[in-house]
């Protein structure tokens, strides 16, 4: 068996994948079936991001240049804010607050460990709804995990997660493509014997966990109940046979950032195409992280460039990273657009949000966020501007609605966003 590279992974996606139960889940043709949130951290050089004109027909600014070919499928949204990422009396810690407030619309409780608290994130709201119709309710991936020792601005590093299953349970993203692959497609390689053994084992484990959690204190009980929920989810997943795929797992984490990001994007497309999941969150790197980008001409750690104070040299570095991130996203759109899905393409049936909860990197502020949506047959080629401090959660609410998730306003959302579907 040979290990296949990223370049080989997605060849003939449709042909490579057997879809044992996917066909049954076909959603109404007009509904985008899937959601993906791509989080690009630590701020943008906004003049290079924001189109200079509103409406249609604008020129794609430097950072977005690679997206020009997808013009008709991309809408840029200006003016949205993650108001719950603001200090609100909690002092420093904008990176932790940015990540944890972005999809939750909730101001995280400041703590290094005891009593972690934020809110349920939009992807997990979707995951709960999609759970009935997919094998893996949601996938959380990243190019930079929190294996870096140290504190995260006086917040526990778990606040670096954008995905929150409950107000006390962040979903740690996975960084290793091999692990992601095995999570998506590992099931197919299980023998019936293994499957049966796993079932018997989980059956006993579930009983034990229930019994153990019964007479514990509040916090301990919550921890054991997390495990109980996880066991049940794994059991449910085993009821739905996974697709088999005619390719081998990636070998591990590529040394090149570009290869790493593209491999994870390949796997995302593959996950969607195979019907394995309908909800993905992908952090291109950590908030305030130390990822370096020699391939984009920036050997420095990302975060140290962002406090640029107007220094053109540092701004140039940040701009390079910004555009480099967008290029990887463009690669993903290419792939999604090139893959047939039902009547149209995979991209037609997927809503993609590309954004983050820090706008200006120098100020580390949380308003006028860099935001764009693509796919899902939304009328693209538009630049929409919203009133100052419009909660970005309103966009999340709209996206959930478009994806067919029945949802009440959550976090600090005040209602769905205007103009997203209509022309403006």
């Amino acid at each position: 068996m040979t290990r296949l590279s990223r370049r080989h992974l997605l060849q003939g996606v449709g042909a490579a994948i057997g879809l044992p139960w996917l066909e049954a889940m076909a959603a109404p043709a007009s509904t985008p079936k899937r959601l993906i949130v791509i989080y690009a951290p630590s701020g943008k050089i906004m003049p290079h991001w924001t189109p200079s004109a509103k409406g249609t027909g604008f020129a794609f600014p430097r950072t977005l240049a690679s997206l020009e070919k997808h013009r008709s499928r991309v809408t840029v949204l200006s003016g949205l804010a993650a108001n719950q990422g603001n200090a609100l009396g909690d002092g420093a810690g904008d990176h932790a607050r940015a990540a944890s407030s972005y999809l939750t619309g909730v101001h995280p409780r400041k703590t290094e460990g005891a009593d972690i608290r934020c809110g349920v994130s939009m992807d997990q709201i979707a995951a709960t709804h999609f759970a009935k119709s997919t094998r893996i309710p949601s996938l959380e991936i990243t190019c930079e995990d929190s294996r870096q020792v140290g504190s995260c601005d006086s917040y526990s590093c778990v606040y670096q997660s954008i995905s929150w299953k409950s107000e006390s349970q962040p979903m740690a993203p996975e960084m290793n493509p091999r692990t992601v692959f095995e999570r998506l497609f590992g099931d197919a390689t299980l023998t019936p014997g293994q499957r049966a053994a796993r079932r018997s084992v989980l059956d006993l484990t579930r009983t034990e966990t229930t019994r153990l959690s019964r007479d514990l204190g509040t916090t301990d009980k919550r921890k054991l109940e997390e495990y109980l929920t996880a066991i049940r989810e794994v059991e449910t997943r085993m009821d739905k046979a996974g697709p088999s795929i005619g390719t081998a797992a990636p070998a591990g984490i590529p040394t090149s950032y570009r290869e790493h990001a593209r491999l994870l994007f390949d796997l995302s497309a593959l996950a969607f195409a195979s019907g394995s999941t309908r909800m993905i969150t992908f952090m291109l790197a950590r908030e305030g992280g130390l990822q370096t980008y020699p391939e984009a001409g920036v050997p420095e750690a990302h975060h140290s460039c962002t406090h640029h104070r107007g220094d053109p040299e540092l701004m140039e570095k940040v701009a390079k990273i910004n555009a480099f991130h967008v290029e990887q996203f463009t690669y993903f759109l290419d792939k999604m657009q090139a893959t047939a899905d039902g009547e149209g393409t995979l991209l037609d049936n997927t809503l993609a949000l590309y954004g983050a909860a820090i706008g200006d990197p120098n100020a580390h502020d949380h308003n006028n966020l860099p935001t764009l949506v693509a796919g899902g047959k939304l009328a693209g080629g538009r630049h929409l501007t919203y009133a100052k401090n419009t909660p970005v959660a309103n966009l999340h609410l709209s996206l959930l609605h478009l994806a067919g998730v029945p949802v009440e306003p959550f976090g600090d959302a005040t209602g769905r966003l205007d103009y997203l579907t209509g022309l403006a």
Partner: protein
Amino acid sequence: MRRFATFLFGTLAFGADAFLDSVKPVLQAHCASCHGAKSPAGGLAMPALLAATSDESLRQRDKWERIADRIRAGEMPPKGAPRPAEEKLEAIVRWVDSSYEAIDRSRPVDPGRVTARRLNRFEYTNSVRDLLSLDMNPGEDFPADPYGYGFDNIGDVLSVNAGQTEQYLKAAERVSQSAVPVPGETVPATMHRYLAERMGQDRQLRMTVDHVFPIEGVYTLRAAFYQALKDGTRVRMRMSVDGKPAAEGELRFYYQIDRAIEAPGVRVTAGRHRVEATISVLPDPPYKGTPPYLEYLQVYGPLAEGQSPNQRFFTCGHGAGQHGTGCATQILAPLARKAWRRPVTGSEIDGLLGLAAREQTRTGSFEEAMRSALMAILVSPHFLFRVERDRGVGTHPISNHELASRLSYFLWGSLPDDELSRLADSGKLETTVKEQTLRMLRDPRSTGFVDSFAGQWLQTRNLSVLKPDAKLFSSFTGELAAAMRTETNLFFAEILRENRSILDFLDAPFTYLNERLAKHYGLAGVIGEEFRRVDLDGVQRGGVLTQGSVLTVSSYPTRTSPVIRGKWILDNLLNQPPPPPPPDVPALEEQGVASGGSMRQQLEKHRSSAACAACHTRMDPLGFGLENYDAIGRWREEDASGELPGGVRFATPAEMKKILRADPDVFARALTEKMLTYALGRGVELRDRAAVRQIVDRLRANGYRMQELILGIVESEPFRKRRGEGGA
């Protein structure tokens, strides 16, 4: 660096009105203008604190401790603000310290409650290894564990979701396949060829692959290079498994040469191992031109003859096919007892036996049934979580078995061994903690503590993820990074095992080096790959601050940063982390450096604003004191002088370290708090101050010996006791 001599605790009594006489008027006059009621600086408002009676005011302990810390550090009042006489400041600090000491003494220590801890991947792997005596790394695919309070073993922060649960299942499956041989089951040999181009390691002189070996057995490894060389050119290739040499070959190039070397029969244990190949061109004859690079690494096996099933698992002593009805109980009961770290109940054993019986019926194989039962032991919440039980609402000692686990996970990162378990069973552990602790420190498993604690406390774990700029620092390789980490670990281990003073961390006349690292430091006379103790007389090194590991992790990828290094010292050696810069003040970085300005000039700006100066007057000079070492820790000629608050000056790194060492209690307290956090798996809170103070007292009375610190922790109330839920 502290402005005052060490305060003697409890020797100075205050009258009832010390607060009114010595504290309130000074703070009112000197602090309240910035720390007023409306938008107080740093969020600290004096008026409310000062209006109350002293007893009421003291309830705001976090605020008073902060005030005392900042005054003690000389940071407040900030430079430029009018300063009261030093003895007046001293009186405030003394009042705070003695008030809280009296309060702490007047009531029992609250040991707190530790949240149930999921094993992190380091603990999981060690526990499986020690449970089954298996040399494998089953937790290697688990996602990184999250950090809280700077450590990855904090119960409140560790959680579990479906993805991880699948990983637990998979790991348990792999472990049980390795541990429980099934008669007649052999693994067919397979060939894996890793192409460098497809591994993101194209055109490299070194190629690394983490290969999963399905079972223990004999494998053939092969590495090949690419690139036509001039006829007669000689290259040397080497292959290793987990750093141990497996093959070495010298090849003389001719066009039709087989450009590969082979390690024909290497015995490898089950699990993932790092296979590495390197190639270098030998200098004779001289070769110029494109260097050769590695093309692929290949693993073939397991070879049929090498597969020897390991019967250790079958503790009933029977061979394949002879297992009677009692065998399952005989095997599973002690295994569950050890894995779950406490006596197992009859119904728990019945659960496992029931599973085994069903599996035996389904598969018709005793061995398969044992595999499933072992899996169940390993994914059981009793194995994956360390749960401690409340025995009433008040403060009470934890059980002997809980104590055994606290000790073993603290000092070994693994489960209790038979001796600890026996003592716990007989209820004698509580009275033998000291002997057991010293025994455990002598045990090789304490290497786990060194690597895990030192790697996190000093942040040297980050060496594996940091990427110094390859152009500027071409000598920084994975090998050098590993050597740096080894140096720090061996240095830490000597202080621990030889019971040296913890102040040696700040400065010590010895270290551990191999040739590679010694050359990096510019030291001659250390030959060979193995590490050895090196005396540092007359050398500009000594203590963790001058070790390559620490100097690298506290630098940017392209250059040093006095700010980061100063912050590193405050965070890790003094445990006085400066608050992050306020949100409305953009961090002033050494931005002018690239465009020609001097870093010192740039950082002077920190002093010009009171908001910055409060922290940076201490942080920046500490960092400047290490400017003689570049971003990967090499010596360089540079101005490393600095002036700390209170006018304390130094000219060299050695002088700065002397200043740090001059105030041993500050470092002792910092290290105590860090280690207590790690030992307990929870954050150290204000209510732990009394326990911390007792440990620091003990250290001071015993020459600051490292083992006194460990003993102080394992004998402390927070380590030995627990408060029941609802208890006060």
